[in-house]
């Protein structure tokens, strides 16, 4: 049994985990470093523009020659109302570009190393939706193909107009959050990578509800900003030069990352902390400086938790950015080694929103930052995994029932709210969570990719146990960090690990689970359908077997105790079939636990004795269950909770009437 399971695990272990060697004197490469960017950019704070020069070296990791390059020109999403982003935003996002706040990027030149100008060859393409007016993906045919293993180096000159803050990027007054700002090459997926059956570019348009996907590499960036501006960026600051025109140029180096973002503002208050070898920089708005410990403390806790339960954070720097007032659209966004948070003045300690955002965005350093899934196509793999760990960390730090809010007796936990995000949907079965990000029905992207995925993982944890789940996640991280896994790669890890730890309890693999919850849209809902308790009439008359009891059946009147027979019926209302535990309690305090495979629509359990209570999933191991109210039945129904809340309601209604009497 175990031999069967070990084989796929061993097979997984054969995936190459070492990457190209680093240059002498430099730390070893953590990733394959497909791209290398050297960018000089100047921020014009009055015009809100960027003037940049970018040298890109791209390496062909496939076994076939590549004829063209494809670039993301993300800022063009905010160029006009006809971009795919803006069209989709009308129904999917509650954002709008304010008057005069459009943003775009213009390419001035694109040259090969030999000086060949390619700008005139560039065309915009629309691989996702056929919107010819979208300018977010640019195709560059090359005069000569890049051979397998070969590289191509290009120099691009561009000028970008930053939008007034929208969808994680732009400006608000003197605050600048500069993300998705440079011409960024897409991912060429050789055959066998993720779902690719032949070598092809994976370069999606910018959608209203999708994020990003890029190759790992090295970024050397010179940022020139006016003097007095405080700057934070992906990577490590390597230098600072004061220029004759009062500007300052900051030099950053980031290796083994797949994006580069930065921020600048003259108002930031910088607070620093360290966790082991990691320097944590918090760039806070002055009015939020008093909350520095909340951000830094929760970042340290998250670093410790993920280090213990997933894997090490390999970078030396981490920057936390608190966007300015009016720039809330920049809040709650992750980039490699830098993320944005959100808070407000007077935020009570019992409302742990700053901690939640910090922890969530930090977890993204792992899930998409290092385990670089395709956020366009499989958003569940970054947002959902992150949400799962966010709830774990929050609940472990602040208590399962109090982790999100604990304020004047009102309290609830992060996992509780995450589950509600999913179960509270009008139709939780509207689409599978594996739907590409831009194809989700309106309003369902967030609840399904964040909420449902977190519940899928929590339910998996409930089934296989926390220890097995930790092994799965550690293995997944170790195998896939600095690479581009897809859903089937994660499932393969689960299928390899679970049989080793759990034996044949769940069968040879867990595909039966993932087929339902990842690739299917069914809902999970178990119930206790009924409890029937019947008084048993003992056999009467002259019984041959036991003449001593031949006069049985006289019941209570005869002095013998009452006898009962109970039938507990449990049911599966949803389509998802899972093994569940049924707890049955008797009037003498005895409890029996049954295991039901959940395959049929109903199951009956018969007992001699008087059942007073039955519950499916008594330990709440299946948070995917969309209705916990029908999970329990009692005979007779308890009156305590009913009266408790009736009394409470009575009191508050009385007070409401008295208040109304006062003001009327």
């Amino acid at each position: 049994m175990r031999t069967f399971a070990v084989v796929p695990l061993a097979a997984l272990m054969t995936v190459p985990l070492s990457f190209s060697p680093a240059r002498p004197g430099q730390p070893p490469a953590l990733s394959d470093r497909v791209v290398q960017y050297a960018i000089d950019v100047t921020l014009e704070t009055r015009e809100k523009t960027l003037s940049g020069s970018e040298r890109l070296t791209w390496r062909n990791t496939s076994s076939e020659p590549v004829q063209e390059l494809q670039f993301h020109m993300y800022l063009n999403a905010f160029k006009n109302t006809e971009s795919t982003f803006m069209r989709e935003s009308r129904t999917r996002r509650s954002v709008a570009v304010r008057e005069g706040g459009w943003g775009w990027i213009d390419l001035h030149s694109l040259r090969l190393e030999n000086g060949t100008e390619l700008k005139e060859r560039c065309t915009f393409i629309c691989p996702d939706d056929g919107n010819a007016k979208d300018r977010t993906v640019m195709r560059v045919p090359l005069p000569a193909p890049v051979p397998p293993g070969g590289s191509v180096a290009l120099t691009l000159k561009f000028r970008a107009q930053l939008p007034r803050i929208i969808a994680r990027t732009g400006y608000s007054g003197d605050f600048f959050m500069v993300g998705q700002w440079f011409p960024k090459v897409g991912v060429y997926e050789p055959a066998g990578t993720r779902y690719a059956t032949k070598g092809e570019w994976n370069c999606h348009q910018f959608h209203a509800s999708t994020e990003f996907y890029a190759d790992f590499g090295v970024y050397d960036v010179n940022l020139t900003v006016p003097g007095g501006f405080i700057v934070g960026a992906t990577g490590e600051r390597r230098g600072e030069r004061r220029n004759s025109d009062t500007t300052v140029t900051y030099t950053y180096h980031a290796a083994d990352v797949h994006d580069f973002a930065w921020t600048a503002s003259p108002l930031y208050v910088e607070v620093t902390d360290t966790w082991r070898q990691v320097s944590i920089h918090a760039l806070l708005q002055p009015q939020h400086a008093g909350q520095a410990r909340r951000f830094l403390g929760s970042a340290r806790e998250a670093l410790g938790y993920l280090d213990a339960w997933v894997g090490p954070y390999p970078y030396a720097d981490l920057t936390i950015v608190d966007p300015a007032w009016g720039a809330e659209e920049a809040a709650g966004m992750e980039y490699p080694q830098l993320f944005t948070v959100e808070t407000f003045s007077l935020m009570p300690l019992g409302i742990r929103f700053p901690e939640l955002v910090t922890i969530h965005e930090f977890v993204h350093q792992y899930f998409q930052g290092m385990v670089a899934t395709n956020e366009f196509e499989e958003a569940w793999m970054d947002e959902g995994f992150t949400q799962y760990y966010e709830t774990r960390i929050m609940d472990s730090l602040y208590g399962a029932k109090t982790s999100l809010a604990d304020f004047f007796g009102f309290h609830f936990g992060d996992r509780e709210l995450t589950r509600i995000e999913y179960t509270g949907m009008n139709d939780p079965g509207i689409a599978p969570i594996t739907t590409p990000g831009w194809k989700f029905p309106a309003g369902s992207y967030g609840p399904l990719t964040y909420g449902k995925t977190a519940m899928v993982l929590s339910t998996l944890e409930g089934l296989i146990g926390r220890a097995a789940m930790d092994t799965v996640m550690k293995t997944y991280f170790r195998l896939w960090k600095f690479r581009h896994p897809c859903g089937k790669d994660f499932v393969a890890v689960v299928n390899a690990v679970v049989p080793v730890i759990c034996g044949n309890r769940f069968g040879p693999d867990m595909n039966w689970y993932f087929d339902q919850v990842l690739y299917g849209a069914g809902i999970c809902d178990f119930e206790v359908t009924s409890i029937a308790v019947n008084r048993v009439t003992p056999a009467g008359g002259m019984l041959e077997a036991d003449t001593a009891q031949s006069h049985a059946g006289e019941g209570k009147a005869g002095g013998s105790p009452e006898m009962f027979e109970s039938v507990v019926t449990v049911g599966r209302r949803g389509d998802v079939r899972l093994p569940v535990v049924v707890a049955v309690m008797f009037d003498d305090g005895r409890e029996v636990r049954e295991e039901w495979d959940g395959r049929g629509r109903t199951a009956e359990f018969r007992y001699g004795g008087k059942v007073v209570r039955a519950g499916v999933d008594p330990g709440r191991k299946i948070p995917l269950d969309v209705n916990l109210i029908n999970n329990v039945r009692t005979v007779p129904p308890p009156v305590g909770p009913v009266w408790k809340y009736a009394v409470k309601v009575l009191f508050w209604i009385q007070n409401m009437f008295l208040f109304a009497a006062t003001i009327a």
Partner: protein
Amino acid sequence: MTTPGILRGAFRETYRNIPLVTTLYGMNLLFASVIAMAFRAFVANPGNAGALGPLLKDFDMTLLYDFLRTRGEAISALWQVVLFMTLLSVALNAVSSGGVLATLESGAPYSLRAFLGGCGTFAFRFLRLLVLTGIVTGLAAIALVACAMPVLWWLSRNHTSEIPVIEGIAAAALALVLVLFLAVMASDYARVLTVRADSRSMARAFGTSFVFLAKNAWGAIALQVIVALLTVCLFALYLGLTGLLEMNSGPKVVLVFIVQQVFVWCRSFLRVMLFSCELAFTCSRVSGSGPTEIVST
């Protein structure tokens, strides 16, 4: 008469009219019970109640949310009951204030007949006054919000911090509370003046009460604030007591129920005491005024 003297006298007068307080409390309990019993029936749906067991021990967001979600239609029906009963209660309170004031004004011991007589005498006038108060308050609130919104928008656009906006919202909220406070006081004194002078025009009574309040602002406000503070103290005492008594068993639920009802009764006592204060204050400030015979209409 000084404010402490008015308060002492009002307390004695209210104490003398305990049955009046109990009548008001009883009305309140009766109306609220309709909603509470509807809620009880809604919660006690067979099959649901078992799952709600943990809620007896502690607040459970997961269960509560699932319960509310799965009973959406019933909640909608319950909400309609709440809305209807609240409106009915507001109207009944306006009507009953005629009975309260007539009883207090007469100086005679409480009798249900006199109370109901007072209710009937002033019913339509006080209902008209209720509508008038609503309109005036609504218009004042709309005007205030209309002034505050551009200021808040400007603060939001021209500052790099949310603090000026928070301060602006706090100032606007304070102003709104003051407007409501003034309107409530004016409405109360309009009722007192109506009972004392048997006015027929509620608009005039409302206007007269504003003039009266303008002339006697500090004394009137002091009385309102003191009674409001007493209510706050009472509430703090209630919270302290119920904080010690977690509702995690049947006897404790009963005990908390008793504490709650004592609290509500005390609030009714303070409500009557406030009317008594306002009557005494009006008597002491309106020159030549004395007890006025109620003219039955």
